């Protein structure tokens, strides 16, 4: 009985974890419009759409491939964000790269 219960629990966990493991990686490129301790909003360069994302303790902030303080994130800065999630509406930021703004055409 106990063995069967363990098998059922394992199967349920597997089914439950599958969607969580099936996250995709996204790249958001644009300008920071809002930054807090747990959130980052970026207005995309390509279409002007603002993407709201979550940040956590593992979120990395870099400039020229070197780690910098999260306090460096400021509204108006141009960034390249790599985030993971199920959709653009549900993203957790993995890394924020501070980059020069693109040259105007």
């Amino acid at each position, binding site marked *: 009985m106990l063995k069967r219960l363990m098998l059922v629990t394992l199967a349920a966990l597997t089914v439950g974890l599958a969607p969580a493991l099936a996250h*995709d*990686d*996204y*790249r*958001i*490129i644009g300008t920071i419009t809002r930054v807090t301790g747990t959130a980052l909003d970026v207005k995309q*360069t*390509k279409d002007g759409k603002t993407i709201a994302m979550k940040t956590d303790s593992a979120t990395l902030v870099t400039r020229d491939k070197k780690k910098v303080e999260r306090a460096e994130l400021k509204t108006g800065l141009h960034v*390249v964000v790599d985030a993971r999630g199920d959709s*653009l509406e549900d993203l957790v930021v993995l890394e924020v*790269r501070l*980059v*020069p703004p*693109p*040259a105007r055409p």
Partner: protein
Amino acid sequence: MTSQPLPEIPDHPSLSTLARTTVIALVVAGVILVMAVLPAEYGIDPVGTGRRLGLTDIATPPLDPVEMTRSTGAALKPTTNGPIGEYPGQFKFDVYEVVLQPYEYVEYKYQLEQGASMVYSWTATAAVLQDFHGERAGGADDGAPAEESFDKRDRNAADGSFSAPFAGIHGWYWENVGGEPVTVRLTTSGFYSAAVEIRSDRTRTARTLRTLDTLMPVSSGSGSAGRP
């Protein structure tokens, strides 16, 4: 002691007899040549005897082609025949061009069965971070990873041939790491069944592949233009 009579030596034929028999032999040989040899050997049948006697079939035996199983939508998996890989369908070709804005990336991949091959050439207007890799159909399997990289180096061009080590989608990841737009242009042909473009916002766009019917023949007059 008795003497035996000498064998009778026939008279030599006269010149006119020799000439007549030679002409008759030549005529008979000519008739055989025209009526039998030419139709049977070369398919030349001026008097129609070869056709009537079935001799022209000897010169041009009917072909007995090997039956190829061809079906639209079948998995393009090769069957090995010595150095030849035979497929149950025609190869396709594709030209893909994309402009990568600063820091953008794109993936472009083809559906290939195990052992199926393609040839490719691509160029970029500036060096890009690239990863030529494959994703196993069905994900990780028996300890093999879900994805495998075949060539992961910064490049601005590559030309090659590829034979898929496993069934799945195989192709390139190109990333523009600079601040200027970069155009990547890829040309391929091969035994793939589908192509997909995956942008950095995870939008997946299936591409229409070109079939051989869409290839226009080059006219014979311009075939050698530009060559010495």
